[in-house]
């Protein structure tokens, strides 16, 4: 895990802001992200893809998942121009990136984990 995936400083700010609500925020983000991934994998409608990617990008950026946000941004702006194959590939990349960062958020939930 390197800092090209996650903005660690953003995470530390979130922890400070949320205090005891931090684990709930992480859970919410993870659940939200899963349902969005599901939506992305289900559809080939460029407009829906773009909208879901937009929302996903927003929360990913708020949560410091910088690469995930960048991939979502790409899907949001290029969904209408990409071929179905390219889209499948991009959605797979997004899914992979989410799988990559997920353990970080899981581990952040434990109070023992401090900086």
């Amino acid at each position, binding site marked *: 895990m390197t800092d090209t995936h996650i903005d660690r400083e*953003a995470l530390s700010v979130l922890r400070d802001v949320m205090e005891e609500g931090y684990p*709930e925020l992480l859970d919410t983000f993870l659940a939200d992200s899963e349902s969005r991934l599901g939506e992305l994998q289900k559809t080939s409608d460029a407009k829906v893809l773009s909208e879901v990617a937009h929302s996903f990008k927003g*929360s990913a950026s708020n949560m410091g998942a910088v690469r995930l946000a960048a991939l979502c941004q790409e899907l949001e702006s290029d969904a209408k121009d990409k071929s179905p194959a390219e889209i499948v590939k991009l959605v797979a990349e997004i899914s992979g990136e989410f799988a990559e960062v997920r353990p970080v958020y899981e581990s952040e939930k434990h109070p023992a984990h401090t900086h």
Partner: protein
Amino acid sequence: MQAQEPLTILIAEDSAADRLLLSTIVRRQGHEVLTAANGAEAVDLFRRQQPDLVLMDAMMPVMDGFEAARQIKALAGETLVPIIFLTSLTESEALARCLEAGGDDFLAKPYNQVILAAKIKAMDRLRRLQATVLQQRDLIAKHHDYLLNEQRVAKAVFDKVAHSGCLSAPNIRYLQSPYALFNGDLLLAAYTPAGDMHVLLGDFTGHGLPAAVGAMPLAEVFYGMTAKGYGLAETLREMNAKLKRILPVDMFCCATLLCLSFQRRSVEVWNGGMPDGYLHRIVSGERVPLAARHLPLGVLSAQAFDDRTEVHPMAVGDRVFLLSDGVIDTSDASDQLFGVERLQQVFAASREPDRLFEDIEQALRDFRGEARDDVSMVEVRLLEPAQVKPSAPVYSDSGQSCPLDWSVSFEFRGATLKRFNPLPYLLQLLLEVHGLRAQSGALYSVLAELYSNALEHGVLDLDSSLKRDAAGFARYYQQRNDRLEALQDGFVRVHLQVQPQGEGGRLVIRVEDSGKGFDVARVMERPLDGVRLSGRGVSLVRQLGYNASWSDEGRSARVEFSWEVEA
């Protein structure tokens, strides 16, 4: 984060994580938070809870942020409910859509709590500013309504007072804008007990309520003193003193006061600061200017005030025309004044006397291009005495204290004759006798005639034959003023005697003077002639009947009034 005054903030965001994060940040900054997951929920929450500020995601299911923003702005009406769009939108077109939908600012993701706090603060300032502006606007509107209402009430009260007079008399025509009172213009008319008519056209300095406040006391003095039989001089003195006392230094009242006498066929004029009025002699077509010879009312002290009047003879049908400076001071687009010359041109061109007002109005419209609302004009015609029907005075006493058997004598000597008019007092005393009230007009006329005969021809030794023509008429009144000024000795005595007689009673009035008297027999031989300007008023008194007789070589006059049943 420093807490400001807590606001209720609505967060509309479909992403649960972002919503949770944002609510936590905003709550930690000390505000109340309401949350909605889409635009429709947001509008519904806004309707129910009226939050102060909205953080609105642009892209949301069910109803997007643009539509929700439009609806919320419509619901908020004049109140400023700032909407900050939450967006990671990057295209300028999309950002422009946020503003078009009523958005006031943006907040980009990822959220930065310092920037968010600063934006909430800035928007709150804007919101308060708008609220203050609205509050002040409403306050101003309220004050304005209040003022208008006050004016309506003041006008209603004043109209009652002003219309207690005789502006509706058949010989008066006038034109005044409905709110002329609040331009400081004032028009009053009332009958004297003798059936003469007093008319006042006044113009207070200033506009609005300040210009109108002086009108009440002025009207009160005018009506009160006219009804009691006071002449112009006393009424003017009282009005001047009253205004001088109550008005601030920079406020005064230009005024022309007329006494139109149908019996004597004359008009007495005092003009203080008003534009020239005009006496229009119908037969010759001549217009005699009635120029201002005095300072306005309320300027001079009682000692310095000049109550001298001018008297002009009139013929039946002659008209006196008065106007406010709104006519002459009307200016056109290039600030040129209408002026007296143009007014005279209207006079010259006006063929039909009854259309004079319309002609003047038309000329003003032609000159200026629009009508003004501070133009006052009045025209009074001299009628035959028989055509004048003064309204009967109203008495408010119970009638239980009517004195029926008494007599009283007065002697008014030189210094008193100069400045004191005893007639109102004498009349009031006599009107305590209820049986005389029905004849109050005649009683006053006769008393006034006898008194002025005694004073003018007796004490002052004025020659009534002077009054045969208009020039002599003026000379006569000039001499009267001069001699009165110089008066040292002499007296007028008035004896009143009231006795019961059957069911009614009888009043004997005797008036004596210290003058040279006159040849009673020769005067009595003359035919009764009411039309001449001259004659010692003897004609008038004889015409009225009442067993008039003269003794002591004309120095003592006697009349009788009687009544049948006590009123």
